């Protein structure tokens, strides 16, 4: 493997980890509630703007604002679920779709009205720095963002595995009727799950703001990207979201280098089609 190829693979893995975290929020919400959040990318961009504002007005680095933004997004998700999504849980899927697409449209146009169409960058003191490892150049911000994304994924995994609330949420996902019978407060757990999904979105958006400039135009692209990743990784699978993110990151980077940069996205979709044909449940998803 040449140094340039290795460089591209490393960059792809780092970007893919952040993509994975972003998709994780979508996967968690769907895995438990069977609700597909079509406003996913839009709220990721809201988190990017939140990180931008905190940096621009208070000088807070996104690596610091990561936690408060994730907490704020948890509460935002919780409130949204209780007030807006909960009444639609038992309704037809197309009604959920319309609700969340409508919400996405409102959010993206609201951002456009408030911030305008210009890209809003976060210029950290190390934004233009890179680590030199032999002949490799690895962006500092990408390394930090990827490490942050990986740490959050591990924390979320531990939460679902070892806490009582995490176990209860998994019980809801595995057997909703059974969870109700044993006395779990399903409505409350759904709201917590939605909050956790939104906390992932908040964290991912904050980290994403260090490697891409906040702009309303990114929102639909992020929604689509998250869908591609979770379908490849397996809708509802946490590890699948991370694997899907890394696969997309690497495949886009390699296709861009060896074939044509303008055809990067095409390879994501090619990968999606292959997975849908050969393993419709996704690489790490369970067969329904």
């Amino acid at each position, binding site marked *: 493997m040449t140094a340039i190829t290795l460089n591209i693979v490393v960059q792809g893995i780092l970007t893919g980890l952040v993509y994975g975290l972003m998709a994780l929020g979508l996967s968690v919400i769907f895995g438990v509630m069977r609700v597909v959040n079509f406003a996913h990318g839009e709220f990721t961009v809201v988190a990017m703007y939140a990180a931008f504002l905190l940096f621009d007005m208070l000088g807070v680095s996104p690596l610091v604002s990561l936690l408060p933004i994730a907490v704020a997004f948890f509460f935002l998700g919780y409130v949204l679920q209780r007030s807006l999504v909960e009444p639609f849980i038992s309704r037809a899927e197309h009604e959920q779709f319309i609700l969340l697409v409508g919400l996405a449209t409102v959010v993206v146009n609201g951002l456009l009205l408030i911030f305008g169409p210009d890209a809003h960058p976060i210029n950290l003191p190390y934004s233009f720095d890179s680590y030199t490892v032999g002949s490799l150049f690895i962006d500092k911000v990408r390394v930090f963002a990827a490490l942050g994304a990986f740490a959050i994924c591990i924390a979320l995994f531990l939460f679902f595995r070892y806490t009582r609330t995490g176990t209860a949420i998994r019980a809801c996902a595995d057997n909703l009727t059974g969870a109700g019978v044993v006395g779990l407060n399903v409505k409350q757990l759904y709201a917590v799950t939605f909050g956790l999904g939104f906390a992932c979105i908040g964290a991912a958006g904050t980290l994403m703001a260090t490697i891409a400039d906040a*702009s309303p135009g990114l929102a639909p692209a992020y929604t689509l990207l998250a869908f591609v990743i979770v379908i490849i990784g397996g809708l509802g699978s946490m590890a699948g979201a991370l694997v899907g993110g890394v696969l997309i990151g690497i495949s886009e980077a390699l296709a*861009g280098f060896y074939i044509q940069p303008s055809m990067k996205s095409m390879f994501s979709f090619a990968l999606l089609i292959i997975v849908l044909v050969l393993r419709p449940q996704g690489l790490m998803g369970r067969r329904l």
Partner: protein
Amino acid sequence: MSIDQFKFSRRSVLAGGVAGAALLAAPGIVRAQAQTLKIAVLLPQSGYLAQAGQSCHRGALVAPQVLSDLGYKVELVHIDMESNPDVARTQTERAINEGAHCIVGAFDSAGTLAIAQVCEQRQVPLIVNIGAAPQLTEQGYKFLVRNFPTGGMLVKNGLHQIQALIDATKIAPKSAVFLHANDNFGLAQRKGMDALFPKSGLPFKLLESIPYDPKAQDLSVEVTKIRGLNPDLLLVVTRAADAIKLVRDTVRQKFQPMGIISPGAPGLYDEEFYKALGPLADYHIDALPWANPKSKVTQALEAAYTKAQPKFRFAVECFNVGFTFDALMIAGDAFKRAGTTNGPELMKALKDTNLADHVMIGGPIKFDEKGQNNDIPSASVQNRNQTPTVVLPAEVATMTPVLPMPPWQGRK
């Protein structure tokens, strides 16, 4: 009730027919008799071209007052085509149905092509403010004029400017890479480059042309590829956000070309670019048409713009604002001469345009039989102190060009 009660006499049928015809023709009559020209300005105010679209929109917002002072009576209807050709098409239909006498737009070639088809069917003139795809004036549209260079003209003028820059700075580049957005505009530029570069006589080799997706998250792969080729010059056709990504990834990968030069594309001179990159935004060069600071119309527009849009710098926005204003003035001028809003007559007046005083540099605005203004020269505009500054041609330059550009590291 007997059916005989509904019998129609010949007279009543004739009367009804006349009334119906009058009703159908009413919009046309109103259109022809209007005292003010109603112009629908279609621009991408949202979507991925929103940054440039809104810049053009700001120009359109200040235009009516300046045009009124110059004796042109226009009324504008501002329409967002959402960076989407399908929306552009339907909004054009709607605007014409609601009484627009002519259309100005639409920054984006793909959207403009969609609008042109509707205008052609409805016989309503379209004045292209910005849009470089050659087919706009090569497909035989009879209701279209364009006061903007074609992709080929931009590249040709841009290559001339690169030669002038080499002569002025005495640099000796041996190779270049051409990086372009993979959209209508970028592909038009690529076509122009493929056709014109071999004939240009420029003293360096074009190693590769690399298209990129304008909606890409970053350009790190593209820059890695360029770094592998190690060219002396980087020739680019970008949009605003992409230009930022390009420079950012170039700096991160410690790739230091002699210069980054655009043979006529947005991106390198946008406010967004300066804000995002600070000192790293300096020394990039754009070879493109620019506002003529000595023109009285430019001065009037700048004064009105500065008053109405205090948050934006005319020096940075003058490309989008200037071309949009000139397109509106062309419409107002044709209406003044034609004395009617009737589409074919207005179009005839547009084709006979001969406007000496306007915003952008160049001779009088005139259109050839295809509707193209062929006299729109380029200047070399270099970013200096985060302001686009004319450095060539010498007669209109306010600074001398600097190449090779200073190293990235020293500028932090």
